[in-house]
């Protein structure tokens, strides 16, 4: 009563105020503009000031972070690039605001669809960064990016991403998603191994058949 509550409250404010300076003195230069400093300021022990001074300092982007998608291509040993997308259309069907537009082609000779998109657009004005396209793509060919500084002066020219702007190498995917990339590669390796085994088994059977 009689203002005791207020005084106790104000003590808390005072503690916060001095906390900043005490921390500054203790940590010295390391507290600002270093990765270590940023990491400290988002840890459980932080006292006092807390702000990360964007854009001089940046919060690290966690691996799961998702911002507009990109298409993955593999760099072959002969120097050519092979886009992983098969234009199956699952991402376009699952996209909630329907901002993926894919054009599929057919081989003029056979009339069969070619497993590669001729055109691929994402209208990032309405992309809601939900990550469904990356979640549901069966070929690991569309992934969510970490690059988020996309502000531009003219949205009508820059904000529809086409195939060239969307494509990024698999090495980039590996760089920003190390854990997921390793897991995907593992699954792929196991699959390929199985396929190889099956092929060998078939060959063996064939050989056996021949020799008989």
């Amino acid at each position, binding site marked *: 009563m009689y203002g005791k509550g207020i005084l106790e*409250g104000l003590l808390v404010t005072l503690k916060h105020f001095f906390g900043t300076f005490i921390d500054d003195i203790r940590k010295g230069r390391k507290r600002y503009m270093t990765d270590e400093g940023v990491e400290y300021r988002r840890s459980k022990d932080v006292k006092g000031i807390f702000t990360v001074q964007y854009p001089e300092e940046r919060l690290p982007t966690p691996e799961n972070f998702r911002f507009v998608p990109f298409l993955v291509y593999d760099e072959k040993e002969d120097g050519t690039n092979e886009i992983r997308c098969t234009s199956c259309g699952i991402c376009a069907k699952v996209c909630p605001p329907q901002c993926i*537009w894919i054009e599929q082609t057919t081989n003029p000779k056979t009339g069969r669809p070619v497993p590669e998109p001729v055109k691929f657009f994402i209208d990032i004005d309405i992309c809601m960064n939900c990550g469904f396209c990356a979640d549901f793509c069966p070929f690991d060919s569309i992934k969510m990016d970490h690059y988020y500084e996309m502000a531009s002066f003219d949205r009508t020219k820059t904000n529809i991403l086409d195939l060239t702007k969307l494509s990024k190498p698999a090495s980039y995917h590996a760089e920003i998603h190390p854990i997921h990339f390793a897991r995907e590669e593992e699954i792929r390796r196991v699959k390929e191994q199985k396929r190889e085994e099956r092929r060998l088994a078939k060959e063996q059977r064939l050989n056996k058949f021949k020799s008989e």
Partner: protein
Amino acid sequence: MNEIAVVKSELEIRFPDAVRKDDREGFQGYIVEKESLVEVATALRDDFGYDYLTSVTGVDYIEEDILEAVYHFYRSTGGKELVLHVQTPRNNPVIPSLYKIFHGVDFQEREAWDLIGIKFEGHPDLRRILLWEGFNGHPLQKDWKEAFYVEEKKPFDNRWPEGKIQQIEELNKFGKNVRYPENFHDPESWKPEHEDLLYAGLLDLAEKTGSGLETDHVVINMGPQHPSTHGVFRMAVVVDGETITALKPVMGYLHRNHEKIGERNTYIQNIPYTDRLDYISSLSNNFGYAMAVEKLLGYTNEIPERAEYLRVIMAELTRISNHLWAIGFLLNDLGAYFTPSLYAIQERELILDIFEEVTGARMMNNYHRFGGVAKDILPDAMKKIENLVLDRLPRKVDELDKYLTKSELLQSRTEGVGVLTPEDAINMCAVGPVLRASGVPYDVRRADPYSIYDRFDFDVAVRYHGDTYDRYLIRMDEIHQSLRILQQALKDIPEGPILLRNPYNIKAPKGEAYGRVEGPKGELGFYIVSDGTSNPYRYHVRSPSFINLTGLEKMCVGQKVADVVVILGSIDIILGEVDR
């Protein structure tokens, strides 16, 4: 026979002509003749103990040529729901209003009139609520189409395999994106009549509650642009001197017809949209929606253990972050400018860091799937959660407690301000902290347990004065209880799969489902009707912020005009959810 079955058969015995079982495929509850609706509802409230009518909405069954109102009754002591359906022909859709019996249907009936076009006879103030009054038609009727209309259902056919891109804004040009009703000519010279009605109604109310002195009543519009309203929200207030004699909330400024969008979407596409309802607590919105669809799909008992734990952990972290935000801004509303709120937001920021690491986004999490969750927690993030829950948060919440709870300034501004009695709270369908601060220990996690909440040891926080101070205290209590749940969940969380199955296209069997969770703001319900295709036939959100506003008038009348701001802050609304 369990208790609900007893009630049901008694209901049938008592009203043999008016009540019949709803035997459509996948539906539950009863179809009530509209003439006897009031009678049946009264009996339910007075004789059967179903005194808590939480959700009222409508569905347009265009094939059968009927509009249907759907009521979800509960007991305020806990238990399962009792569902009533009332049907009315489409060309003359009139249903008696339940306003006299349950005041809480006020906004919900207005919403059903606005969006679906059911006229509730006997409702004292049946104006449009979310849309403007010159709006053409009732958008949730199945034959209504938006000005920019592509197709009935997603996915749209023109995206694949001949995706010739069109920028959406070219198709949706300014000036051509509105359709006016016939005989509506010039929007510039048009004068809204409902505004007059609003003020007339207000002054009418003011007459009844005035001080008796022969003074003039002044109408003040607080909002739509007002710093206290946390968004675009307007309160039309009548004051007599400094004292409020009548108040009516006006909303819909942020309306985007979430439900129509939801009916165009496929089931899975709706998940990220639910994030945008109450954007402070996305993860619990996801939870509610996923639960409702899981009920439809019949997955409810198959969800992997680890996924359930992850859901609970995320939901409780959300609750803490939401309450911190609410407390911080309540202090802002009191005039303690930004110091307390920044202390609170600092902790919320650390929680958001965790969300970002686990789900990929700070606020628009999109984390739940039908039958589990999207991503597992990486070990790093788990460590962070443990640090926060076991070490930092208890410390910091205590500090906040020390900082604010005993402060005489806070006490003198909030104690005895904006009182809501328990009877009123139940009658007005208040939910969540607002209800529990009024002394009604109703928490969906205990009253109708879902997920794995029955395993945890926690108390339902309850306070008894029903004033603003108690609504502040209850949030503090709930943070402590959430920390308790988290501590148990972190200890017990098993290893294992996190997702049952994850097809990109789900077809739900025919029927209806109502899934509800105890969100940070109260009971958040999703009512879904499926017609057996991959898009919901009807998708309705019972939003706690919206319905809690029903009690605002009751809390404010008789208070000083400066206190309105605080009372509104103590209800803790998010306009994204109010206006949907």
